């Protein structure tokens, strides 16, 4: 393979040029880029962009201002809030706009713990007023359950609470198929468990977690304990649904969640905007102080164009019927059509790669995974080299999460499946989107074959020689 850097000449395929399924042939000498990293981010849809544009300079008011400029802005944010609430099957006032899923996840984890600690403090003060009341039991440290393969924003939020000694955390391991077992979650619940946080779809391997079943189990446990008046805290359930919104059931009642996070840029919306769904009466304290925005749950001036974009992107997902209902679908065949198109393309990709490239493994369950995700381990290949070689050919994929690309450690997600570090280093995440064509997949696979052959040649027998040493 002869690689030449021609990035500045490259043309990026924009959705409008490939929405029809037919992409124009690039001019000779110009390499058309292929984007296979939709789990990292997606391009903003034309319709979404159009909806956002008036809210940058024409309708620029602060949504908290009382004058007409502010009222125009608030009209837009409230419309988006309704669109969002419709999508998740909740009330408008249960939606809190944040700067993205990272902030939403931090608010969920830290906010629940903070509310618990605040309630205890006021309880102590209250009791201290009555004779003998100050001799109440000391604060029970709250307990959180999460998974070992969460996104770093949830993991690190939990770790920082552990470090500050304000919470205990249990990290549940998935099975080798990348799926969390409900029994493992149930076994981990203690008297002081105030929060269970489990991602809906894993961002690296795309495996789908049984959120609705876990939600049901938690609800049943909460109900049982309150019925028998067992002194026990209510366990709240949070899911990071960032990678699930495009393709999976997101009705909060059906999922049985108290808290749900997502961000717009994974669903063909803008970056810098996301939500935390907070079920009514859920004890949560804000972690960002300032103004009274978002029912005093998240301070900071509203990102009006972003909020409008998020609402439009969700409406688009709904109207395009990209969603699929895993159990029984009352939706038209159309709904399954888009889901299946992406899935069929991805299955074709997996089948060809496993068949045509020797010593290749698919990471994570073959069936319980998001329709747009494929994650491979290639023996005797290092992921970053593979990624850069592909990039030089105008193909964008990823080794794992884009957020961890600054780290040299092998992926914590792959290691959690029991994969050896050298296999984890040789991984490639391919995430397709709704505009990807079969032709693009074919170009990718053909290049991938060449590059892997080349990199394996460069590596020679060094791995075996190392172990023989």
């Amino acid at each position, binding site marked *: 393979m002869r*690689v030449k850097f021609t990035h500045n000449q490259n043309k990026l395929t924009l959705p409008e040029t490939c929405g029809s399924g037919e992409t124009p042939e690039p001019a000779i000498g110009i390499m058309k880029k292929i984007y296979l990293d939709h789990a990292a981010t997606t391009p903003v849809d034309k319709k979404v962009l159009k909806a956002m544009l008036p809210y940058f300079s024409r309708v620029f008011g602060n949504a908290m201002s009382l004058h007409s400029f502010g009222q125009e802005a608030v009209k837009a944010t409230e419309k988006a809030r309704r669109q969002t609430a419709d999508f998740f099957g909740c009330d408008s006032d249960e939606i809190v706009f944040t700067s993205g899923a990272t902030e939403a996840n931090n608010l969920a984890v830290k906010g629940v713990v903070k509310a618990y600690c605040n309630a205890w403090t006021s309880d102590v003060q209250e009791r201290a007023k009555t004779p003998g009341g100050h001799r109440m039991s000391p604060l029970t440290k709250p307990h959180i359950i999460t998974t070992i393969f969460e996104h770093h924003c949830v993991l690190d939020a939990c770790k920082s609470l552990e470090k500050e000694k304000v919470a205990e955390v249990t990290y549940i391991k998935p099975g080798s198929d990348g799926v969390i077992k409900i029994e493992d979650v149930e076994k981990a619940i203690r008297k002081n468990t105030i929060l269970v946080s489990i991602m809906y779809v894993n961002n690296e391997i795309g495996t789908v977690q049984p959120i609705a079943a876990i939600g049901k189990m938690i609800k049943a446990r909460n109900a049982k304990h309150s019925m028998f008046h067992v002194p026990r805290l209510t366990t709240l359930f949070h899911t990071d649904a960032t990678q699930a919104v495009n393709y999976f059931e997101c009705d909060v009642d059906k999922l049985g969640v108290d808290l749900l996070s997502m961000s717009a840029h994974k669903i063909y919306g803008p970056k810098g905007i996301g939500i935390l769904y907070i079920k009514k009466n859920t004890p949560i304290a804000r972690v960002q102080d300032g103004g009274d925005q978002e029912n005093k749950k998240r301070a900071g001036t509203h990102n009006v164009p972003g909020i409008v974009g998020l609402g439009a992107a969700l409406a688009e997902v709904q109207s395009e019927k990209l969603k699929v209902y895993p159990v029984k679908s009352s939706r038209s065949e159309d709904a399954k059509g888009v889901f299946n198109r992406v899935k069929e393309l991805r299955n074709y990709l997996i089948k060809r790669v496993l068949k045509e490239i020797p010593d290749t493994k698919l990471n994570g369950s073959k069936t319980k995974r998001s329709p747009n995700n494929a994650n491979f381990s290639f023996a*005797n290949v290092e992921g970053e080299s593979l990624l850069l070689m592909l990039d030089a050919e105008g193909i964008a994929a990823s080794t794992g999460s884009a957020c961890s690309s600054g780290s040299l450690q*092998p992926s914590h997600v792959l290691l959690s499946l029991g994969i050896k570090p*050298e296999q984890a*280093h040789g991984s490639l995440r391919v995430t397709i989107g709704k505009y990807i064509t079969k032709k693009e997949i074919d170009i990718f696979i053909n290049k991938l074959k060449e590059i892997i052959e080349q990199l394996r040649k*460069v*590596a020679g*027998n*060094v791995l075996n020689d190392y172990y023989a*040493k």
Partner: protein
Amino acid sequence: MYSKKVIEHFTHPHNQGAIDNPDGVGIVGNPVCGDLMKIYLKIKKDKKRGEYIQDVKFETLGCASAIATSSMITDLAKGKTLTEAKKISREDVADALEGLPPIKMHCSNLAVDGLREAIEDYEKKK
């Protein structure tokens, strides 16, 4: 992220491959960090200069900078006497590659280590 020179050596590595019946071999790195490198040496004796590296080749499983530094160390070491070759530092390799990202500096360390181990292997066998 990477300099042009790094990409050049990564995509078109010099002296890549194995040497049959090498005089010295060095294997460094570990699979946990993701980079493994094997350096092969062919040593020749010269009356005037003493022992020098007649040929050097490498096999590397690793990131772009691991491959680029392997390629660069073979360029730097080829033709040098053993005394000269031992003096090549990780900074020399990084400088010749027009710099490396700070997080990747350990990789150039690896190439230097590989060369030194291969020379030691030769000297032990003598």
